[in-house]
């Protein structure tokens, strides 16, 4: 008799759980859209003359080492940058800092501590050994999200992701929440680049796995009613290994381009395409461009072209270049060189387009500081930059 009761109970629990499950939770999004609040104009009057300026996000001597910046254009028009700084990459004193550049101004505020090892440990109620990459982005409601890496054991392959949200564009943050994304002790999920936004509110964040096999993944986040994470799920991509730090560009008509950092001996930037808004992906194929095992970033300009910032080399991160594609990422035209110096490092670019159509790049400058470069399309399209196809 009690056996029958237990079976009936199991059926009841399963029926209730299944009944409460939201429809379409494991289906591809219908459309990927740019956030209305962030849509840029193609060319304002201020963009007719070439404009190019450079400034510093992190002040001199702020921390001995600075790396991994991520830039975000906020709905208010401000820019917000986040990066990690400390004695050196992976040190226990590394913390995440944010700085803001208010709309209409040309200077960055002093760095503000967003999270360090101790605060992360307190908020997550577990041991945290070190802090790594972070990304910031707004959702459709204007809530700002920060997703960042922490490690409790081992190296970067032991990473896990955490979320903080902000109702006031990064001035205050909620406590961190851990995301469980991997079945094996939740180890080895990392993040580097910004997400795409589905029309149903879901956020498609490109992430990657590094333990044993290295491969890209898509993390789909559903915002909750009160802001923050309502639900989430992760999808592994095709069985491609050795490719990490995916960068996404929504191309329209359900197409999304993915560009990948190459950790294999080939050292070539790889590309893959999705025809269903980032849900399933083609096999990644090598492009004509080299990749020295380094991060890159790209965005779709208001005029439809794709702009990419990357290290144009098979080895070393001694130059940082721009390339532009007018055919959805199949062929690239070489653009201006942002930095180039033998024996130095310029890396981990992060791109954003502001409301006025100006392009902003932040990047690691010699592992010491975070630099910011701003330019407009008139500067990008100066006659000298209309050059040959980017070749190795």
């Amino acid at each position, binding site marked *: 008799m009690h056996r029958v009761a237990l079976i009936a109970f199991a059926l009841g629990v399963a029926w209730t759980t299944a009944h409460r499950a939201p429809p379409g939770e494991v289906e591809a999004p219908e459309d990927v859209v740019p956030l209305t609040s962030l849509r840029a104009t193609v060319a304002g009057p201020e963009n007719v003359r070439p404009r190019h300026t450079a400034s510093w996000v992190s002040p001199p001597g702020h921390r001995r080492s600075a790396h991994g910046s991520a830039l975000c254009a906020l709905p208010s028009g401000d820019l917000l940058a986040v990066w990690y700084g400390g004695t050196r990459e992976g040190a226990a004193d590394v913390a995440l800092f944010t700085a803001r550049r208010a709309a209409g101004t040309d200077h960055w505020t002093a760095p503000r501590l967003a999270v360090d090892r101790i605060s992360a440990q307190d908020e997550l*109620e577990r041991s945290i050994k070190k802090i790594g990459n972070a990304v910031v982005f707004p959702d459709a409601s204007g809530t700002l999200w920060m997703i960042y890496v922490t490690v409790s054991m081992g190296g970067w392959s032991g990473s896990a992701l955490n979320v903080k949200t902000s109702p006031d564009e990064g001035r205050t943050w909620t406590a961190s929440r851990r995301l469980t994304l991997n079945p094996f002790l939740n180890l080895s999920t990392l993040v580097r680049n910004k997400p795409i936004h589905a029309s149903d509110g879901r956020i498609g964040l490109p992430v990657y796995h590094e333990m044993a096999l290295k491969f890209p993944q898509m993390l789909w986040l559903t915002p909750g009613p009160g802001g923050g994470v309502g639900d989430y799920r992760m999808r592994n991509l095709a069985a491609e290994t050795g490719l990490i730090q995916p960068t996404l560009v929504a191309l329209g008509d359900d197409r999304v381009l993915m560009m990948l950092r190459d950790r294999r001996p080939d050292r070539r930037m790889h590309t893959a395409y999705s025809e269903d808004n980032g849900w399933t992906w083609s096999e990644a194929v090598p492009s004509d461009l080299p990749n020295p095992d380094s991060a890159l970033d790209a965005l779709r300009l208001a005029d439809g072209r794709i702009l990419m910032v990357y290290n144009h080399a098979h080895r070393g991160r001694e130059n940082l270049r721009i390339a532009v594609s007018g055919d959805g990422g199949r062929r690239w035209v070489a653009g201006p060189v942002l930095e180039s110096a033998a024996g130095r490092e310029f890396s981990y670019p992060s791109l954003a387009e502001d409301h006025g159509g100006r392009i902003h790049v932040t990047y690691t400058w010699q592992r010491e500081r975070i630099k910011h470069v701003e330019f407009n399309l008139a500067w990008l399209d100066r006659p000298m930059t209309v050059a040959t196809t980017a070749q190795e």
Partner: protein
Amino acid sequence: MSTALYTLVLVALLWLVLMWLGARLRPQGCPRVLNLAFGVVAALLLFVPVDGLRMANWVFGFCPNPSLPLIGVVCAGIWQRLGGLTVLRLADWTAAWIFGAVAGSALYLHPMVLGSLDLYFWGWDRAGAAWGLAALAIMFLAAGNRFGVLLLAALIGFACHALESSNAWDYAIDPIFWFVSMGALAWRAVHRHRERRGRVAPAAG
């Protein structure tokens, strides 16, 4: 379940494990006062901060989603050792170890063999996962195997979002349960092999 409540459950579980270990180490017929003192010390140990964190938080940090079957077999083992009651019978233990070995191997090893098959993803399909867990639990329950109760607990835990994870797999299996299951089955196999050899040896001699 809130992290604070969840940590409390883990503290209780760890305390039981310490009590079990203590019971195995202490000599038979130990005075009751000593038993009580051991219980208090074991409880206090769990709250001693190490590098600013309680021992329970350290365990929680490294194993953030202990599966319900793992918690169940630990509790059953402790209960049987300390209370002398048979909670799980031999067939139930066997079912637990076989489930742990099969489910764990499938979940953790399939990316190396079938890279495009993403088993973990389907654990986020709430409807499918709930019916899957229910089907497994019912299968064991219908056969009169008590391991079905632990799978039913996993289903209830999943329905209530009792763990940090929202993926059904984490309610049914975890790496520790997998390792223990593989170990238990291997130990049994070795034991059986030795027994067989022991039986054959005298005849051969």
